[in-house]
């Protein structure tokens, strides 16, 4: 019986230890390094999509941490999804480095502010960030909102603040953003497709 590495783990995931599977004769065609297989055996596998280019390659993310309340789960390995009709398990040099994106030393961890004229960021709370930004929005919108144009036509627009939406965030994020910006009356709205 030919068992692919993924099927092998699926079988193993059925409650049998790897060695037992092998003992039963379900030996994969290609032998696996012990250390690697044991780590993967304890891992949870999650389906995701490469966030870089628009090929949209399927990926499998392996994480440790069982989802228990105070345990943070962390991804330690990513590979191409062999079942994916487009990439069939392959990834390019960009997708192959995705673990290093997740764990980049340049990931942002806390809300920060750089005050006017300052030369550094300082950490603030989410509540302070939301409150101060909402206050900025309201001050600018209240001062500059245009209800009617020169001809007296209702236009209800706000032109002094703008919004750039992402290139890799989800449709769902995009829809909430769309609601947010239009309800405020913004017209200076664009996403990465513009450039």
């Amino acid at each position, binding site marked *: 019986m030919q068992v692919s590495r993924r099927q092998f783990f699926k079988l193993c995931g059925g409650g049998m230890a790897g060695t037992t599977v092998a003992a039963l004769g379900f030996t994969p065609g290609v032998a696996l390094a012990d250390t690697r297989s044991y780590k993967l055996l304890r891992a949870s596998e999650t389906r995701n999509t490469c966030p870089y280019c628009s090929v949209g390659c399927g990926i499998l993310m392996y994480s440790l941490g069982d989802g228990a309340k105070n345990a943070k789960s962390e991804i330690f390995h990513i590979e191409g999804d062999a079942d994916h009709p487009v990439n069939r398990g392959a990834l390019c040099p960009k997708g192959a*480095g995705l673990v290093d994106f997740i764990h980049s030393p340049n990931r942002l961890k806390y809300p920060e502010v750089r005050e006017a004229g300052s030369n550094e960021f300082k950490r603030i709370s989410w509540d302070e960030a939301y409150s101060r930004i909402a206050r900025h929005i309201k001050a600018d919108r209240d001062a500059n909102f245009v209800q009617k144009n020169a001809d007296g036509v209702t236009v209800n627009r706000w032109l002094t603040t703008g919004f750039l939406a992402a290139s890799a965030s989800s449709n769902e994020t995009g829809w909430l953003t769309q609601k947010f910006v239009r309800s405020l009356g913004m017209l200076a709205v664009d996403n990465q497709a513009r450039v």
Partner: protein
Amino acid sequence: MTNHWVDIKNANLIVVMGGNAAEAHPVGFRWALEAKTRNKAKILVIDPRFTRTASVADYYAPIRTGTDITFLSGVIRYLLEKGAYNKEYTLAYTNAALLVNPDFAFNDGLFSGYDAEKRKYDKASWSYQLGEDGFAKRDDTLVDPRCVINLLKTHVSRYTPEMVETICGTPKDAFLKVCEYIAETGAHDKTTSFLYALGWTQHSIGSQNIRTMAMIQLLLGNMGMAGGGVNALRGHSNIQGLTDVGLLSQSLPGYLRLPSEKETTLETFLEATTPKALADGQMNYWQNTPKFHVSLMKAFWGDNATAENSWGFDWLPKWDKGYDVLQYFEMMNDGKVNGYFCQGFNPVASFPNKNKVVASLSKLKFLVVMDPLVTDTSTFWKNHGEHNDVDSASIQTEVFRLPTTCFAEEEGAIVNSGRWLQWHWKGADAPGEAVTDVEIVAGIFSKLKALYAKEGGAYPEPIMKLSWAYRDAHDPKAEELAKELNGKALADIPDPKKPGEFLAKKGEQLPGFAALQDDGSTMSACWIFAGSWTQAGNQMGRRDNADPSGLGNTPGWSWAWPANRRILYNRASNKPDGTPWDAKRTLIKWNGEKWAGIDVPDFKADEPPGSKMAPFIMQAEGLGRLFALDKMAEGPFPEHYEPFESPIGTNPLHPKVVHNPAARIFKKDAEQLGSKADFPYAATTYRLTEHFHYWTKNVLLNAIAQPEQFVEIGEGLAKEKGIAHGDMVKVSSKRGYIKARAVVTKRIRTLKVNGQDVHHVGIPIHWGYEGVAKKGFLANTLTPFVGDANTQTPEFKSFLVNIEKA
């Protein structure tokens, strides 16, 4: 893409032009190689550089950057002259036979209706001759000189192989070789797939580059065919989806648009946006615009949107003009903007003329950056030496930097180039206090709404009335938002064909957009996504990879808009009488009662073959347009205009009209254009396979793979300037300079253009002053602040530089 990645394997010829798929979309490009090995397909590459795609091509032709319209118009001329196109398809499925307004004309580089003062056209003459019935007149004998195809023949007659050589620098025999390859696929059982990317869009004539290719695909009969189509390889993983949900200045979700200030009532707005049929018996699907719009308004405002208040028409902002990013940074630079949000977007790196962008941001009161990573934009106020030489103390902008989750730490759908909405799942917790973009937007919105409730202020209605029916107002879930995008019935929706039955019962998720109503009884935030999350659940999460036909169609894998259709316009894969052009590529068939097959029919399901209905159902005349009517800014036929910075400084076709006459350029930016005397070399920017835009300079593995900034020049230029491989060079434009290592290569050759030598300088874009990679210069320090006349996409691919040893 009208088709999808795997479908590329069905092509007989793959033309890669305006892109470099082997490096920028490596895994997708494997399907081109699959076509080559399994289908004996040929791959052609036309590019200023001999790219890695070229290295696996059957034929490579060099071309000067910014001259693709000339090349492709030359191909059209060749096809028409040799009769090497699908005549039956062209007659039945394109507007070739339709008669054009007698006032339409083209003289000396300008179409009829030009206003030089405004740099705009009055497009009244860019129209059909209409009969008394209001339908376009046609002459199926194609004798009338006003037939679209006859005007097209005259228009492209100037693009001779000699003219192609003069403008493009492509040797005549290389050009003719490409023509021969393409002409072979005019046969009914052969298709060409064109793969393009930003190499076509990032020009002042970008949209027309693509149009010229689309016209070739119509002539060859390749639209709607497996292995054919127009295939944009989009740059980012979800710019398709974010465009689908309408995040552009004048857009709304589902390719609806925001009303302008000229449309003062819902009635005038719907009148302007709902097209009337231009031919008898057509589906004219946009006639349903009122249903899409009203359902969207119900998604925006919920129960607050009623027939009495025109579904909240006043609550939408009305535009006077587009506020695209170039327009907006011009305003910012003039001090007319106070606040700006950058959600996963790095404008300092991504927009042209980096020094102007930084100067503009420095005039803001506040900037909010949401991102998983440190971006150059978030620290634009910091002095990074030569790479960003600013005086922090004088920059008064308050900058908020908010940490977001990345793909691995959230769920939701993103749309690939093949229009597949692929749902993804969360696999890990976010670092530190990072939260989703949704939570941030909701967090700010909740605070703002509370402030308006307490204090009042400028026109709070749209904020207070916005529908926000989420279980946790501070953290709407992806599932809730996805269900809104699909839409649901707000009342029982009767089935018009089956009395007593219902398309959907009140409260149910809608099965598709055919159930949408214009009376407020349905809501759907994005009509083209209707069907993605139905009563049967999340269709985007489906992962059945079965390909029963062998044509690479996997209808059970995720969900494609619209209606899970994988190949758009697939009715056109059959002749008018219903038989397929090529039996091996049968996508749908008429079974006596309806159309059915391996794909979802892109047609009225029960409309029999031989009827008047033509296959391009989104068009008012049902036909593919060789003549674009009033849809393009610079003309209904494509015309070659030089880049705003041209290495030949003239337009050999019409020296009085050198550049795109309808492109917008601001005064100060026009003054910052360089001339060939000071900046003699044609520059173009591009991507490397090891890096993704400006993200992976934060990613260790990629930074190791391509650690140091470089530029590529040919041996001819290197010799002229005394530059050796590995030397540090300074590359400058009128707007600034960068320094990088020189890679001297045979891959870029000197071209003979209009009697002079033209050298190219190739500039990969991936470095900046933030990241774990070695610091570098932002390539967009060099690029000009001018965009395409239709989309305002900046001209990153064609500008002028000088180069010298640093």
